[in-house]
């Protein structure tokens, strides 16, 4: 292994770990996205170093594809952030801890507490359906956003 390849791999490892750290610890969606880009950049560094070491251009070709995927990811991620921000007025990722439907009750604690799973209850509970689709425009103050925001506080 030549020193240049070795050093490039080392830099790529450091950059990748820093990006991982940011992705794990930061709570701002935009900074998390930038950290993911950092990890992609580390991989691109490795690819170019390997291409140089093997004396061909496959590494650089792969890097172009990495760049393409990064561009697609940026477009989708930013528009998703905008959509999420319009819901809760926040870029905090921990607002989105549960992406499930909030009005469906959580069954897991009861399942864990109960010993007999197969005993038939006298009054069985039926699953509830959460409202889906667009609300009919009865009044002007429709919008699921306000309802969701009020529920979250």
């Amino acid at each position: 292994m030549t020193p240049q390849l070795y050093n490039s791999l080392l830099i790529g490892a450091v950059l990748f770990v820093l990006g991982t750290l940011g992705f794990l610890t930061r709570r701002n969606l935009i900074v998390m996205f930038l950290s993911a880009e950092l990890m992609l950049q580390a991989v691109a560094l490795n690819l170019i170093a390997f291409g140089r070491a093997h004396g061909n251009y496959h590494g650089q070709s792969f890097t172009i594809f990495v760049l393409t995927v990064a561009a697609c990811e940026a477009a989708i991620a930013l528009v998703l952030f905008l959509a999420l921000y319009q819901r809760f007025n926040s870029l905090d990722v921990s607002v989105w801890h549960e992406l499930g439907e909030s009005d469906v009750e959580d069954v897991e604690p009861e399942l864990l507490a109960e010993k007999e799973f197969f005993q038939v209850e006298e009054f069985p509970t039926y699953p509830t359906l959460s409202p889906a689709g667009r609300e009919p425009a009865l009044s002007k103050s429709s919008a699921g956003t306000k309802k969701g925001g009020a529920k979250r506080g």
Partner: protein
Amino acid sequence: MLLTLFAQQSATMNPWELGIPILLGVVGYMLAAASPQRRQNIPATVCLLGAIVAAWFTWWQLSGNVLEDVLFTCFAGLMAMAACGMQVETHPVYSALWFALVILATCGLFLMQGAAFISAATIIVYAGAIVVTFLFVIMLARQTGKSTYDVRLMQPMLAMVSGGLLLAALVYAIQQPVPVASQAAAPSVNMSAPTPADTNTLAVLGRSLFVDHLVAVELASVLLLVAIFGTLVIALQSRGQAR
């Protein structure tokens, strides 16, 4: 002298050489990422810079070429510092600026490895991406002061432990000697390897791209198209919901 000694015995690296830069980095990051009341900026900066310098002294291998070594070291140090700054910084606008610095340093490293076109393309793509991200930050970030979710981190202890272990494992794996069989298969020195002085890099790269990876190029174009449509669909949908 000391450096070359370190570089030669790197295959049998003792645990302290592996551990000290990582420990310094962990301590610096913990100081920088503590809760706002207990945050200490100057010791944290000292620890992080010490970690980078210690990593250079213990892990780095020097090639013979002095100019190349100096440039490589400068770009790598700049990149590591900027990446640390990006993770430690509490304001997203400054994080994006640090990220731009990381991209510039990485492009310098690309240039050093004979990838001039990739370097330019990265700068162009990421310049656009960063400008858009800037717009988003300015649009969406809180205008009055810092928000709590920028200051308080999520599980910094666990993240530090896993990050330190990951870095140790990566550095250890990189330092292992290459097995003899694969070393024989790989060309050690090839005259057609891209160098920074090549002028026809782009022509060879284009030939490689459109001869060896033609299907992948077509797939990438389809991917871009799908991403554009997906972006439009999500944007229109969210606008309809918000109304």
